[in-house]
């Protein structure tokens, strides 16, 4: 590496060679160069060409991610040419990104209500949240849920499969639920500015609503006696009951809006007077209430001729009694409403006369259908020509037949009268409903709002501002008679503009985000969706026909719970789950792209969701290859690869098989690296598209690596793991997870989680309150102590509980219950050798850290199946191997790691102690030992020499079953004292482990002083997140916190006085197994373990009279318990965990505890019944106490290691020296299978991993 000098954007930079331009730019924070195919963790690739930069003297632009810097380079990272190239790259990528950013339903809604989002929330039972989401765009869901024209449903993709999702019915469903117990939004502090809203219809109400939330004082001026506009005066009762509408209006007004009714602009006040009276801005939404005339002679002065809109408006006050035949003229919704209303007003026959055919009718099809059902007749291609009168009373009309001509593309055909086709229709009423106009008589000649040629107010459609400064307009006033949802959209936009105008003085158009849609690139084919099961749309329950005609009762009755639950499942979740995390989309906005020049062929694929957790949507793939490269370079699995050439090149699982049938290990790291939504999680819940998710950094609770992971939380109890945040990528696991870390946490969302304590008495099992359950427990424990003594109580802690919980559990046992019967079933049953290094080093812990394996020349992995148990450790080894570290694997059978090993020593099971002893003999014989260290810091060398002397190569090979050549190779590799060697050993392994293994390893470490040398040592892996914390905290009869042993009187005294408990009487050796088997344990407290999942273990419960179980689930053990206390999950509370290499990490509270309180509080509450000293305010306070008690934690910091270089000063043996271990060779292994006695692990095995079985 050499020092070089270069110039970037005119700035001189000193750096070193072997870096890429991008690395230098990022390092010096010169610019933020956009990238898609770049992932700092894998080799640069250079395919997206977004990161191009210009180098002076070169014609071409170069990709900065893979161009190395050279001395004297002059680089520009941003100019017109570069931006234009990046922009085109994005446009090209989007032209072949056949995908929907958001559901087309949302896009097609004039107000962009997040339909997919609220459907997802309804599916989760989050009705309140669904309603809140709707009201972000539409404050009138009760009304709109009844009368909307449903542009969303027109766009719904489900239509291609069967029928659109009944989106509006679902909206009404949540709105109806909310109507019973109303959600009240938060209102910002008063801004002391006044806004006048003219017109109390949907648009005015909406504008008033959003302005009120922003803190403005709003006054609505309404010409009619009541608010509601067309919703009230144009829509009949049977479609939108006035009570429902009034309730909804009241809810808005009650937020603090002033209302003035019966007051008309142009008569009672005008724009100038409003400004003069202290209003700062005005929104005009007076609607279009003036009926258009039919251009028939005498229509104004004939009795029996009515106007649809007037007819409907006056309905509430005067319901006419119609008789005979009523003819309604027109084809819009008003015509239909008038016709259906006429029926309800007693008409014998109602006919709708329309000059075009049914196809051209602007009324909504379902409205037409409803009218037909109720008996309305339709006369299409018919035009009224003359009114025939009897005196001035209508008697009939003369009509003409029409024909349709000249349909231009995109236009409605023109109706043309057929000559001599006149005919007479007798009727007693004629209702004109051919349209309405805006009554602009309010316009003040002195300060006139500019109008459009057709009589509506002229506005800027992006901001709703009119020609007058400070005056805005929207709704029908601007569009002419149109839809309620469009009026609402205008109200919302106007509110935003008014807010901008009043707070900044400027009105800016809001930039709309770039959104990709399938239908804008190509027609969405039936074929693409053929795999989707056809499910009929839930029919809206309706009032029976016979009950409709003589009243105005609401016809549509609303969905039942069951209907809504099944309807939400019909949503195909078109919008992308990565909406907020998609890098591609983000850049689209940054570069303001426009793909219209490049629309052409697109690659189209069926979405592949055959994998239970991973969805592959190749339509969204941009060929950046990050997944392929992560899978091959980091994981060395290669489950994904490229197929095809040219435009058709795309990423698919190997051999185009389903992912499950490849080498895929379901770690999901491909999901995180994918910069688009092409690889995403197959969520156990509906895709939540545009819903915001919060990122929370925390750690994984499965194995002892302590991986940092990012929980993405959607509204408290719904979350998933997604590790693409910078801080996670920069953590020690580099943002990588295994299958457990990614998908295993799903059990926390299981509906079976316990929320309330359970008390079991002889006659029944019942839920109880916390106080009762804890008092009940304390009472029973006291009885047992009184009867059998404190030694009859045993307490068990889980290796997955936090340090704070474990500390309290053992403190409860020792100071509260006064017993040293404290342990964990996981250790007792599965890993009895907690102390195997105690004789040689004083404590049994990892002597080095995972960060150190980078520096190793040789890694020796013994008795550890990393791929299954500690995948991230395996990744670290693979990364080290790329830097020429050698890997020696000692394992009886072939495992996934075998093929990566430089040397695989396939010993017979249980003979590894022999092998390791043999190695010691060879090192001593070859005099490859550190004599100085041995002499000064150790004892027992001579005895060791004697013990190993009989392990000649021939004997070792014969006992272990390996070839002599292999053995020689092994010795050859290990015998250089200057090489750095790290041993990795899984203490929880069962199949391979023999008793002397670790003692033999300790001897090897001591022979070359591999204890305090960088890049050397032992990493003791564990299966569970806090197996180390369990020992650190003294959840063991052998140690007090900080590995204080029975002989350490000073330490015992120190803690005794701290705890105000005489530990000398309590802290004594315990023969646990014997005590339990002989039934001497009468009371048992089990925290977070499920030993009875294995019925064999009932033998330990023989004498138990009282059992307390603390767990998140009603586990096998909980079923036997007298009291079950529900537990909070690790992400529901604060705490610290200690990884296998002694790294202390903090867990933050991310979710609210399901059971209502954190575990430490529960334990402290219980302990408080027995002793004082449990009065904590927070988990942090407990940790402070741990630091005072545990000598190794004294100076530790969060995210640091407890006591780095622990053995530098001394060893923790009695003689303060390291002792060579003398051990018996025992070639029997422990029982072959592990017992999974933790609910989480068992859940993972049965409910997560089992899904991967083909």
């Amino acid at each position, binding site marked *: 590496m050499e020092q070089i000098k270069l110039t970037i954007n005119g700035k001189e930079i000193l750096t070193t060679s072997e870096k890429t331009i991008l690395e230098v730019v990022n390092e010096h924070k010169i610019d933020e160069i956009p990238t898609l195919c770049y992932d700092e963790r894998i080799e*640069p*690739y*250079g*395919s*997206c*060409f*977004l990161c*191009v930069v210009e180098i002076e003297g070169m*014609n*071409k*632009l170069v*990709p900065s991610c*893979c*161009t*190395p810097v050279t001395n004297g380079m002059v680089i520009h990272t941003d100019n017109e040419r570069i931006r*234009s*190239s990046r922009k*085109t*790259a994005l446009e*090209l*990528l989007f*032209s*072949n990104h056949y995908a929907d950013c958001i559901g087309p339903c949302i896009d097609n809604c004039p107000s962009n209500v997040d339909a997919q989002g609220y459907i997802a929330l309804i599916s989760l039972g989050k009705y309140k949240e669904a309603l809140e989401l709707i009201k972000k765009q539409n404050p009138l869901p009760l009304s709109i849920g009844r009368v909307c024209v449903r542009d969303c449903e027109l766009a719904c993709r489900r239509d291609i499969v069967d029928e659109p999702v009944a989106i509006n019915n679902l909206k009404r469903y949540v709105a109806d639920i909310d109507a019973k117990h109303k959600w009240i939004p938060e209102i910002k502090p008063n801004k002391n500015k006044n806004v006048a809203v003219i017109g109390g219809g949907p648009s005015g109400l909406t504008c008033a609503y959003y302005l009120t939330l922003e803190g403005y004082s709003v006054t609505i001026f309404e010409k009619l006696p009541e608010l509601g506009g067309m919703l009230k005066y144009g829509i009949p009762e049977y479609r939108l009951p006035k009570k429902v509408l009034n309730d909804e209006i009241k809810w808005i007004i009650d937020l603090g809006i002033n209302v003035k009714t019966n007051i008309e602009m142009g008569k009672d006040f005008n724009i100038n007077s409003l400004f003069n009276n202290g209003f700062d801005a005005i929104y005009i939404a007076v609607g279009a209430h003036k009926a258009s005339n039919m251009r028939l002679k005498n229509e104004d002065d004939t009795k029996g001729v009515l106007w649809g809109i007037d007819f409907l408006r006056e309905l509430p006050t005067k319901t006419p009694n119609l008789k005979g035949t009523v003819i309604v003229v027109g084809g819009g919704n008003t015509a239909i409403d008038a016709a259906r209303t006429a029926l309800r007003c007693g008409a014998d026959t109602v006919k709708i006369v329309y000059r075009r055919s049914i196809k051209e009718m602007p009324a909504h099809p379902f409205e037409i259908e409803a009218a037909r059902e109720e008996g309305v007749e339709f006369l299409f291609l018919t035009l009224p020509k003359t009114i025939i009168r009897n005196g001035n009373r209508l008697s009939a009309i003369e009509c003409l037949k029409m024909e349709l001509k000249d349909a231009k593309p995109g236009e409605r055909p023109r109706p043309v009268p057929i000559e001599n086709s006149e005919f007479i229709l007798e009727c007693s009423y004629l209702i004109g409903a051919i349209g309405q106009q805006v009554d602009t008589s309010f316009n003040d000649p002195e300060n006139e709002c500019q109008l459009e040629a057709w009589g509506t107010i002229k506005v800027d459609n992006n901001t709703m501002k009119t020609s007058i400064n400070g005056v805005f307009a929207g709704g029908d006033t601007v569009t002419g008679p149109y839809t309620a949802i469009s009026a609402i959209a205008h109200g919302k936009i106007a509110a935003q503009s008014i807010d901008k105008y009043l707070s900044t003085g400027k009105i800016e158009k809001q930039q709309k985000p770039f959104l990709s849609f399938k239908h804008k690139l190509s027609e969405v084919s039936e074929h693409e969706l053929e795999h989707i099961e056809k499910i009929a749309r839930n029919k809206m329950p309706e009032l029976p026909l016979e009950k409709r005609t003589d009243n105005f009762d609401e016809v549509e009755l609303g969905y039942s719970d069951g209907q809504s639950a099944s309807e939400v499942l019909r949503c195909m979740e078109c919008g992308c789950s990565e909406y907020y995390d998609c890098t591609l989309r983000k850049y689209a906005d940054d570069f303001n792209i426009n793909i219209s*020049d*490049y629309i*052409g*062929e697109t690659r189209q694929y069926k979405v592949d969701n055959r994998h239970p957790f991973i969805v592959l949507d190749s339509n969204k793939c*941009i*060929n950046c*290859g990050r997944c392929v490269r992560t899978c091959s370079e980091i994981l060395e699995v290669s489950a994904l*690869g*490229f197929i*095809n*050439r*040219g*435009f*058709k*090149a*795309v990423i698919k699982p190997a051999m185009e098989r389903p992912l499950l049938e490849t080498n895929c290990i379901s770690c999901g790291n491909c999901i995180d690296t994918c910069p688009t939504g092409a690889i995403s999680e197959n969520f156990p819940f509906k895709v939540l598209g545009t819903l915001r998710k919060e990122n929370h950094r925390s750690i994984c609770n499965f194995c002892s690596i302590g991986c940092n992971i990012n929980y993405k939380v959607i509204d408290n109890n719904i979350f998933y793991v997604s590790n693409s945040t910078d801080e996670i990528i920069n953590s020690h696991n580099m943002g990588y997870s295994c299958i457990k870390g990614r998908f295993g946490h799903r059990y926390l969302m299981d509906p079976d989680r316990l929320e309330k304590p359970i008390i079991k008495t002889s006659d029944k099992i019942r839920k109880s309150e916390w106080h009762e359950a804890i008092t009940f427990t304390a009472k029973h424990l006291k009885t047992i102590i009184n009867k059998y003594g404190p030694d009859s109580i045993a307490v068990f802690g889980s290796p997955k509980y936090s340090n704070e919980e474990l500390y309290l559990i053992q403190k409860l046992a020792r100071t509260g219950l006064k017993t040293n019967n404290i342990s964990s079933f996981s250790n007792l049953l599965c890993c009895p050798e907690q102390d195997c290094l105690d004789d040689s080093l004083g404590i049994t812990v990892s002597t080095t850290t995972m960060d150190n394996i980078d520096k190793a020349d040789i890694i020796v992995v013994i008795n550890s199946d990393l791929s299954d148990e500690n995948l991230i450790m395996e990744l670290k080894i693979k990364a080290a191997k790329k830097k020429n570290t050698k890997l020696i694997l000692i394992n009886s059978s072939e495992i996934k790691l075998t093929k990566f090993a430089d040397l695989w020593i396939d010993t017979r099971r249980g003979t590894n102690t022999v092998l390791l002893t043999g190695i010691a003999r060879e090192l001593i014989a070859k005099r490859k030992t550190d004599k100085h260290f041995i002499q000064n810091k150790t004892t027992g060398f001579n005895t060791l020499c004697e013990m190993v002397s009989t392990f000649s190569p021939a004997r070792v090979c014969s006992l272990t079953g390996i070839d002599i050549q292999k053995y020689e190779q092994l010795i050859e590799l290990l015998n250089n004292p200057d090489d750095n060697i790290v041993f990795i050993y899984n203490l929880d392994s069962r199949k391979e482990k023999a008793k002397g293994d670790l003692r033999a390893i300790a001897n090897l470490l001591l022979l070359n002083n591999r204890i305090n040398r960088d890049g050397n040592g032992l990493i003791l892996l564990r299966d569970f997140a806090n197996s180390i914390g369990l020992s650190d905290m003294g959840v063991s009869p052998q140690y007090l916190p900080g590995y204080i042993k029975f002989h350490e009187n000073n330490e015992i005294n120190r803690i005794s006085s701290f705890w105000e408990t005489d530990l000398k009487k309590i802290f004594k050796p315990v023969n646990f197994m014997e005590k339990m088997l002989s039934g001497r344990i009468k009371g048992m407290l089990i925290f977070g373990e499920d030993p009875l999942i294995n019925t064999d273990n009932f033998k330990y419960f023989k004498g138990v009279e009282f059992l307390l179980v603390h767990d998140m689930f009603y586990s096998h053990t909980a079923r036997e318990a007298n009291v079950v206390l529900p537990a909070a999950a690790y992400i529901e509370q604060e705490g610290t965990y200690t990884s296998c290499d002694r790294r202390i990490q903090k867990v933050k509270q991310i979710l609210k505890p399901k059971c209502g309180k954190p575990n430490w509080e529960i334990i402290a509450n219980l302990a408080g019944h027995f002793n004082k000293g449990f009065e904590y305010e927070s988990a942090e306070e407990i940790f402070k106490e741990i630091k005072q008690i545990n000598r190794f934690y004294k100076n530790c910091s969060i995210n640091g290691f407890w006591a780095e270089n622990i053995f530098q000063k001394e060893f923790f043996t009695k003689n303060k020296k390291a002792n060579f271990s003398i051990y018996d060779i025992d070639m029997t292994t422990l029982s072959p299978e592990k017992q999974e006695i933790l609910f989480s692990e068992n859940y993972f095995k049965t409910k997560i991993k089992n899904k991967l079985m083909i």
Partner: protein
Amino acid sequence: MKEIKVGLATCGIAAGGMLIYDELKKEIKNNNIEVELKKTGCMGMCYREVLVEVKDDSDSYLYANVTPDKVKQIVYEHIINKKPVKEWIIKSKDINKEDAFYKKQKQIVLRNCGIIDPSSIDDYISNNGYKAIQKCLNEYSKMEVIDIIIKSGLRGRGGGGFSTGLKWKFASQAAGNKKYIICNADEGDPGAFMDRSTIEGDPHSIIEGMMIAGYAIQADEAYIYVRAEYPLAIERLLIAIKQCEDRGFLGKNIFNSNMDFKIRIKEGAGAFVCGEETALISSIEGKRGVPRIRPPFPANKGLWGKPTNINNVETYANIPWIIMNGPQAFSSMGTEKSKGTKVFALAGKIVRSGLAEVPMGITINEIIYDIGGGIVDGKKFKAVQMGGPSGGCIPASMGDLKIDYDEITKTGAIMGSGGLIVLDETTCMVDLAKFFLNFTQNESCGKCTFCRIGTKRMLEILERITAGAGKEGDIQLLEELAYKIKNSSLCGLGQTAPNPVLTTIKYFRDEYEAHIKEKRCPAHSCVSLLTYTIIEDKCIGCTLCAQKCPVNAISGKTKEPHKIKQDACIKCGLCYDSCKFDAIEKI
């Protein structure tokens, strides 16, 4: 009578060469004639295949366009009766019918093609074979060899035109004790067959060239990456390698020199992009053939991360000649910066299609008119397409351009590997650009955004132009995309893919405009833009066209002028082809 040779390269075999060979064998046996029947490679005159050379004591006679029924007569009259069949002979002492084809050629690469039996190492040896490598081993140091190559001025014949000697120098200077030689025989340009013919006709010269390169850069292992579509070339290479191994020319301690050299054949699956050196290396390594960014160049980090020298077939074939004849002999040919010769595969609308090796500096017109014999059917010469899909079109007006790397690059085309396709007035230049772009689009590895999607979008624009749906601004859009693709692609494929479009726009912009603005194809080639009409005056009402029309779009009474119903016409052209009175007009 000594020997009879049959040209049995792929061109000869395609023309029925094996039938002739078998027939000759049968006749020789039946007539008990003592003559050696040999196979040989391509003699260049592919347009004259099958070629049979009969050598007697005094002369050699080259028979052209030999068909099986001619064999008997040749054997009977020429061999038995010693009376050469003069009318079929194109070359002998007295006859020189194809003199023009050879007159301006200079054969270095093709020196043995069509002369020796490619499956005989002895034939090669007897033509000075394997003397150059021994000369290097015995007389020259490694640096001296590199110097000779540098001095010769030889530039990479694969198309890049980089100095071969310098390339060797970099590889020889690269750190590492394991190095590789690769021969790129992944000839993928449509219409190019120089390398195939060279391997088929003279495999040993390539092996010898590689040996010399191996000696110069101290490599002991080599790969020949050859497409699996060249089975005959592979077969002849395998035979040649086996023969070398048997004689100790390949393997350990070759020519007793302490040098080890092993050659393996790697068959490519026919991906065009694998002709790009980094993709080729990736393919040999067993990975997907995808280019990577350079630097590092293969000379420093190539195959398996080791220093590697890659040259193509023609480059290696030049090496033994240069060593034997000295660098000056080579550099005396050509222009200031382009030395030696270049083999071209002449194809398209040219009279004499085939292989021609010409000295650098010759003009395009000389190649087309003097060597190639001009345009077929006396049509008008419109342009040459050089360099395949990475190249471009040079219009007829620039026919005096000299063959020289730099001169050709200035036109927007490239020298390329030697494909030279001659186009006449009936070729639509937009359609031609579309053809090449379609090729590169399909053959792009799909890695880089611009090459993968950009070329597709360009192709779609060309498709709509030729379909008569071109829009105002399309030419500008094509140019804009083209420059972005050229500027932002990782490898040569993407960087050059727009060349056929850019050069046709440059020289034939009016043709593009005619398509877009007038919806007219000046070359009458784009089907969607064609109109067939019957010229009333010329039509005699013979009804033939109406009978031929597959869609009954032509109607008319016998002996009266017919008419084509334009909305029914599918523009298949059958009427046009069938009319004996030129009464149908194609516009």
